[in-house]
């Protein structure tokens, strides 16, 4: 027999009862000892109860909806894999997007999960604590589901199996690692601005559009479904980041300059991190949805612009880097692909020369810059490749001390000149890619002098596989990089002529004929 159910509580009532009413102030130990990290950054909070999750999501509802998402996700993944879905993608070049994504994203989801677990532990209010806990669980879920969805490709294609080993060793994965290491070693409020606000709210839309929609457009149902399942959590994450900003600004006027500095810093760090996402949109998707520049205009300039216009009532101004990012949107994806193309032996994904049709698409999308600066480079390289001299730059890169990307961006206002900045701290010279990274360094030099720059560590003899005697007289640093990286020999070299290219063509042939 059905039980008689009492009248259902309203959303607001239920949220209050299931979050704040379940929390208590400690009495055996003083609160400031139980929550030791919430004051040292200088953020002043007077009333934690003023924080409310606008979604008003309670744990019971959270489990219910998340379980539903998982069921849908794994049903689709099974169907895709059972049906040899990997052969339905547009072109084997597309799979390189997954290789870059697997190396760069799931490990960062894991770091985000760790970060929100730590921050959730430190937040005094029950509202943010519960929201951080949900986000931590989400991030762990994203890490797992992304790995699961791509694992089927690992049975067929090169360069996927050692992503976890490579994450902290590969030169081009260092920017994302550095971003999260910087955030997680900051205090709880800075972490919230770094990840919850700057990354989730201001910048991740740039990732949603190329990655999910791009995967769908290129026939990859596995990545599409995992992307969707993850992104359905993102609206909640964005809301948490924005709430945190408003909460700090409403609690005390002294919080404004601290929050503003964090917004400036993390919007810039996120912008640098996204250069490779933009490159994926412009160069790596065989079918393109929109250019990086167009995505930047919609999601950063318009949407970010709306956000900062709204926050102006608290005294917040647009991030200092805003004008520079607008100038750079015309350049950074091209500068990134140039940097990757020239290292065919040192990456876990393939690169290639854009086809003539692709060059025309880029000219159309970047009328101010592409034909003038970048087309001649690609045409020259294609000519050299035909002559059997595919470009392979064997040198080691110079990297920015803060964002750890290679120093490859142009001087603002001068696309022909590389931008260099430097600073002397305690007698040692440090180099940066931009004014913004230099400023971040100069605010906290004690932190950034410890930056792990792969090329420097190689030269110190610290990037060697086990068993290499770095004190031997004939020791040459960096002579075992392939073993150190555990780089699959099949993923080295240009896409043209690769094993992936041959296999994909052969398997597709088998899929359509007896």
């Amino acid at each position, binding site marked *: 027999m059905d039980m008689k159910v009492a009248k259902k509580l309203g959303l607001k009532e239920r949220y209050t009862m299931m979050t704040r009413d379940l929390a208590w102030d400690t009495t055996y130990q003083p609160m400031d000892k139980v929550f030791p990290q919430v004051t040292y950054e200088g953020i002043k909070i007077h009333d934690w109860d003023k924080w409310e999750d606008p979604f008003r999501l309670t744990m019971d509802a959270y489990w219910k909806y998340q379980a539903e998402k998982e069921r849908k996700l794994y049903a689709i993944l099974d169907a895709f894999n059972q049906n040899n879905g990997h052969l339905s993608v547009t072109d084997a070049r597309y799979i390189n997007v997954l290789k870059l994504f697997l190396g760069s994203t799931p490990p960062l989801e894991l770091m985000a999960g760790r970060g929100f677990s730590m921050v959730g532990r430190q937040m005094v209010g029950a509202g943010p604590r519960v929201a951080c806990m949900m986000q931590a669980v989400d991030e762990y879920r994203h890490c797992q589901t992304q790995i699961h969805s791509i694992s089927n490709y690992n049975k067929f294609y090169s360069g996927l199996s050692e992503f976890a080993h490579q994450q902290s060793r590969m030169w081009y994965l260092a920017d994302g690692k550095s971003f999260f290491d910087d955030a997680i070693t900051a205090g709880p409020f800075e972490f919230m601005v770094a990840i919850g606000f700057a990354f989730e709210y201001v910048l991740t839309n740039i990732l949603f559009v190329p990655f999910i929609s791009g995967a769908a457009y290129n026939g990859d149902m596995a990545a599409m479904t995992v992307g969707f399942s993850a992104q359905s959590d993102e609206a909640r994450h964005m809301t948490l980041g924005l709430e945190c900003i408003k909460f700090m600004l409403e609690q005390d006027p002294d919080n404004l300059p601290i929050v503003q500095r964090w917004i400036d810093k993390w919007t810039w760090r996120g912008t640098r991190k996204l250069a490779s996402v933009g490159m994926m949109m412009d160069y790596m998707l065989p079918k393109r949805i929109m250019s990086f520049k167009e995505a930047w205009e919609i999601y950063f300039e318009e949407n970010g612009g709306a956000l900062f216009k709204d926050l102006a009532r608290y005294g917040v101004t647009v991030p200092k880097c805003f004008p520079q990012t607008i100038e750079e949107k015309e350049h950074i994806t091209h500068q990134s692909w140039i*940097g990757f193309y020239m290292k065919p032996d040192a990456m876990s994904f393939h690169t290639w020369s854009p086809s003539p049709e692709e060059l025309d698409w880029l000219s159309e999308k970047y009328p101010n810059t592409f034909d003038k600066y970048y087309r001649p480079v690609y045409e020259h390289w294609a000519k050299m490749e035909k002559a059997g001299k595919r470009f392979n730059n064997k040198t080691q890169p110079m990297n920015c001390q803060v964002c750890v990307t290679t120093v490859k961006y142009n001087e603002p206002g001068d696309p022909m000149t590389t931008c260099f900045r430097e600073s002397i701290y305690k007698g040692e010279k*440090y180099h940066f890619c931009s004014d913004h990274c230099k400023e971040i360094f*100069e605010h*906290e030099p*004690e932190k950034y002098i410890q930056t792990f720059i792969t090329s420097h560590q190689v*030269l*110190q003899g610290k990037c060697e596989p086990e068993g290499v005697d770095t004190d031997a007289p004939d020791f040459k640093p960096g002579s075992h990089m392939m073993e150190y990286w555990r780089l699959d020999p099949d993923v080295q070299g240009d896409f043209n002529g690769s094993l992936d290219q041959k296999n994909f063509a052969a398997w597709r042939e088998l899929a359509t004929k007896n």
Partner: protein
Amino acid sequence: MSITALGPYEFKSRDAVENYKGKQLMYVNWEKHRMFSRPFVIAVEPSLKFSELIEKFVTPAYEFHPDFAQIDWSKVVWQNSNTPFTPQLDKSLAENGVGHKDLIRFTTPGLDGLNGIGY
């Protein structure tokens, strides 16, 4: 400014010169030849002659570019970061004032990359 931290916070630079076993880091950039994307870094002895730097490191790094063969080395303009200097080719890096983590930039007048567009 200095860092806001929970406790005493003092760490060494990860790239201090003593970590390089008698060598020093240096960066080299060929200006207006951005096809190479970024400068390269090497660890070398301060006693390395400037001529050896050109022969052993600069040449193999940059000879892929069609401009390289046309360089008139007597006309090259050198800078240490933003400061112009005239290197003595038969003297060492140390004698030429090149220290740990210095960035050596060189410009080749008249050679400004493919089509003269800086690449």
